[in-house]
């Protein structure tokens, strides 16, 4: 008895083909960055300056120079911490005269991280390791072996600037 395809069979085939296409595109996007010789040649080392604002001393103590930084959004390697600067944190406050002032945020600090990254310069943006997009003034979530943190990108500069 010859089995005829019905509409359910066609739906299943289409669904499986769609899943394969989506997966294939995802793999192609990632591997074209990692495997393509041309893209490797375009990666240059840059210092990305990240600001972690208004955090307690626990966060300061959890970071070390040399720690690897990963993007918490993409889970890919972002760069290596080259320098850590710590400053007292100040936050805006209106006093009773209606004046805006910067008040010391008690027991909190700003951490300025210099992260050395391999940066790929594409027409539509700048990407660390060709994967994680970097934009000045944007906030991202990052992680090291010791700390999970949010940081604002303050600058992307040439090494030694």
């Amino acid at each position, binding site marked *: 008895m010859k089995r005829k395809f019905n509409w359910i069979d066609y739906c299943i085939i289409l669904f499986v083909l769609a899943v394969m296409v989506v997966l294939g595109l995802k793999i192609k996007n990632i591997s074209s960055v990692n495997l393509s010789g041309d893209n490797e040649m375009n990666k240059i080392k840059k210092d990305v300056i990240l600001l972690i604002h208004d955090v307690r001393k626990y966060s300061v103590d959890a970071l070390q120079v040399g720690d690897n930084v990963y993007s918490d959004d993409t889970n890919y390697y972002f760069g290596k911490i080259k320098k850590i600067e710590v400053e007292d944190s100040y936050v805006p406050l209106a006093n*009773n005269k209606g004046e805006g002032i910067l008040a010391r945020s008690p027991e909190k600090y700003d951490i300025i991280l210099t992260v050395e990254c391999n940066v790929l310069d594409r027409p539509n943006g700048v990407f660390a390791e060709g994967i994680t997009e970097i934009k000045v003034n944007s906030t991202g979530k990052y992680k090291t*072996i010791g700390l999970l943190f949010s940081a604002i990108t303050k600058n992307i500069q040439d090494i030694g600037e």
Partner: protein
Amino acid sequence: MSFKKKVGIIDILIVLIIIGAVFYLVKPFKENVNFTKNTKKITYTFETIEVGEEFIDQLKAGKDVYNSSKNYYLGKIKNFTVNPYREEFENMEKGIIELVEIPGLYSVLIDIEADAVIENDVIMVDREEIRVGSYLPIKGKSFASYGYIVAIER
């Protein structure tokens, strides 16, 4: 009359999807089986704030701690420290921000000892990633709370 069914392409595709789904579901448990290899004892500090005395009365060294939403085992209470809970208060007259104690509320630092796997820049206790700044809802035999990891000693 024989009912020999021929295996068609649709049947093969369905079998492949089921195998893939089973593999995807089994993988986390399989990784957990390797957990006993390469483990190292660590102590990390968890802070919960704005708790009352009734919560503190439930804490005891040696009690087990779990992630209350995922049920992962987080370790054993080694020690705990109780501090007054302080909140930021904007003193507009002086133009400063002060930390003021709130009576009846406390901030508790709980030292938790656990076996961890440290690999690829990740510290894992059971299936929980341990990092300063990670938010955790915790529970024990007679208590529950939420807070952040504030320190890791390894």
